[in-house]
C-alpha cells in the first residue's frame, strides 16, 4: 500500500553568486562585519510555500501552473532530491522520478553500464539486472551502440535509452515531469503503450504537464500551483476550468 503525505512543505532556494561561493571572500566579509549588508549577497527564492496534500493508492495527481510556478521543484521535493526548508514529505513505496530524459546518467559511460548502475541503485539482483538490460535493449534498439559511451549517441538514441530505462522499472510511486518527448511517429506509438503500462502499474502518480489532454486522460485530481502556492486543489474538471478561466482572462 503506497501513500504520500505532504505537510506544510516550504522550499527556499539560496542563490549563491560570485563572492558567496568563495571561502576567502566570505571569511573577509564576516571579519569586516559586512555580512548581511552586501557581503554575502544572499538571496533566497521562495520556490514553494505551505504545500499540503495526501495521496494514497489509486490517486493520480496532476500539477498545473505557469512556468516557474514550482511544479518541477515540488516534484523534486516529493522525490526527496530537495529537502523542504520546513514541513515534511513522507512517502511509502518505491519512487521513480522521471524528471528529464537524462535520468542522471553518466554520458561518459556506455548504455549498458548506465543500465547496470540504475539496476544497482534500485536494489535489483543480478538476474533482475540482466532482465532489465534485455528489456531496455529490445525497446531502445541501439544495437552496437549499447557498448559505446553515451556521449556518442544521437539525441534520439539518448531519449530512447532514457525512456526505455525509466519505464523498465515498476515503481509504486511514479513522479513525472513534462516528459512527452517529440520523437518520430513510430517511436511515439511504441512509447505510448509502454508508458501507459508503467503508469497503470504505479499505485500513485504525480504528473506535471501543460497538456490538458494528458491531465484529463490520466489524472483523478489536480492541484494548481501559482508562484509556489497551492491555488486550487480538487477534481480534474473543476480545477482545469478554473485554470483555463484565469488563463483566458489574463
Amino acid at each position, binding site marked *: 500500500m503506497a501513500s504520500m503525505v505532504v505537510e506544510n512543505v516550504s522550499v527556499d*532556494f*539560496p542563490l*549563491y553568486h560570485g563572492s558567496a*561561493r*568563495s*571561502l*576567502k571572500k*566570505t571569511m573577509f566579509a564576516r571579519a569586516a562585519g559586512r555580512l548581511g549588508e552586501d557581503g554575502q549577497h544572499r538571496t533566497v527564492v521562495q520556490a514553494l510555500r505551505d504545500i499540503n496534500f495526501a495521496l494514497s493508492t489509486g490517486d493520480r495527481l496532476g500539477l498545473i501552473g505557469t512556468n516557474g510556478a514550482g511544479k518541477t521543484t515540488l516534484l*523534486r*521535493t516529493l*522525490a*526527496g*532530491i*530537495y*529537502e523542504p*526548508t*520546513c*514541513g*515534511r*514529505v*513522507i*512517502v*511509502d*513505496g*518505491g*519512487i*521513480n*522520478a522521471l524528471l*528529464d530524459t*537524462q*535520468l*542522471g*546518467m*553518466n554520458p561518459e*559511460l556506455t548504455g549498458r*553500464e548506465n543500465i547496470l*548502475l540504475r*539496476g*544497482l*541503485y*534500485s*536494489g*535489483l539482483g543480478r538476474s533482475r539486472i540482466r*532482465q*532489465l538490460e534485455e*528489456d531496455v535493449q*529490445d*525497446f531502445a534498439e541501439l544495437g552496437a551502440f549499447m557498448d559505446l559511451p553515451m556521449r556518442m549517441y544521437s539525441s534520439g538514441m539518448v531519449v530512447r535509452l532514457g525512456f526505455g530505462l525509466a*519505464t*523498465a*522499472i*515498476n*515503481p*509504486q510511486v511514479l513522479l513525472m515531469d513534462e516528459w512527452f518527448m517529440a520523437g518520430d511517429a513510430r517511436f511515439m506509438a*511504441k512509447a505510448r*503503450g*509502454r508508458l501507459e*503500462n*508503467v503508469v497503470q*502499474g504505479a499505485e500513485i502518480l504525480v504528473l506535471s504537464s501543460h497538456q490538458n489532454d494528458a491531465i484529463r486522460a490520466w489524472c483523478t485530481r489536480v492541484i494548481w500551483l501559482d508562484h509556489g502556492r497551492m491555488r486550487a486543489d480538487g477534481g480534474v474538471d473543476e480545477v482545469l476550468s478554473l485554470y483555463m478561466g484565469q488563463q483566458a482572462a489574463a
Partner: protein
Amino acid sequence: MDQALDHTAPLLPPSHMEVGTGPTNGGRVRQAVADVADGAALWRLGLTLGWLDIKLRYRGSMLGPFWLTISTAIWIAAMGALYSLLFHMDLHGYLPFLALSLVLWTAFGGLVGDACNTFLQSEATIRAMRMPYFVHAVRVVVRTVIGLAHNIPVVVVVFALLGLWPGRVAFWCIPGLVVWTIDSFAICIALGTLCARFRDIPPIVASIMQIAFFITPIMWQPQQLGTHGWWLKLNPFYDLLEVVRQPLLGAVPTVQMWLAAALYSVLFCVLTSMLFVRVRGRLAFWM
C-alpha cells in the same frame, strides 16, 4: 514492434522515505545516520561506481591502470638512486622506507585531492534522484583502494629485491588500515561538502597537501630529525602514516603513536559528523 511491458518487469523494492523534519537536531541526526546506513547498504553500487571510474580513466589506454604501477616504479627507482648517490643513504634501509612511504602517500594524498570532487562530480545524479550521499564517499574510497592495489606490487618487488620481509608483525598494519578507511569516508564527506559550498577550496587543499608532503616523513626518515622531532606530534599525518608503515617495515608502532592516531581520527570524525548532520539537507541546493 509494440513493446508491451510484461508483468515480470522489475518492481522497485518497497521503501519508506521521510524528508524534512525541521531544524530540530534529533531529526537531522537520525537522517544523517540513515544516510550512512543506506549508503552502506548500497555498497555494490558504490563499488561499481568506483570501479567504472577507474575503467573510464584508462579507457583506450594500452596498459590501463598499470601505468600507475610503472610510473611509481620509475619514481622510486630514480629517487632511490639519486638519494643514495647524493646523500649517501644506505639503500638497504632507505629504499624500502621510501617505496612504502611514497605508495602510501600517493594513496592518501590522492584521496584528499579526490575527495574535493566527491559530490561535484556527481551533480547530475544528485539532482536526478535521491541517493545517500555516503555512496559517493564509498565511490571515491573504492577508486583510491584500486589505485593503491596497483601500486603495491612495486613495494613488494623492492622488498623482495632487498631480501626484506617484515614477518608476522606486518599484520599489525590492518588495524591502521581500518582507521584509514574510516578516516577516508570522513575526509570525502567533509571536503566534499565544503567544496560543494565554497568553490575555492580545492586549490587551498592542494597547497596544504604539498606542504604536508614535505613536513611529513616521507622522503626523509623521522629519526633523522633526532631531538628536533618534537613537533612531529603536531602533524596528524605523521602518526596516521606510522601506524600503517611501521608494521610493514617490521616494527610495532608505540602505544603513543596509536593513541595519537586514534585521537586525531576520532576528533576528525566527530567534526565531520557534526558538519554532515548540519549541511546534509542543503547539499542538493549547493550543486
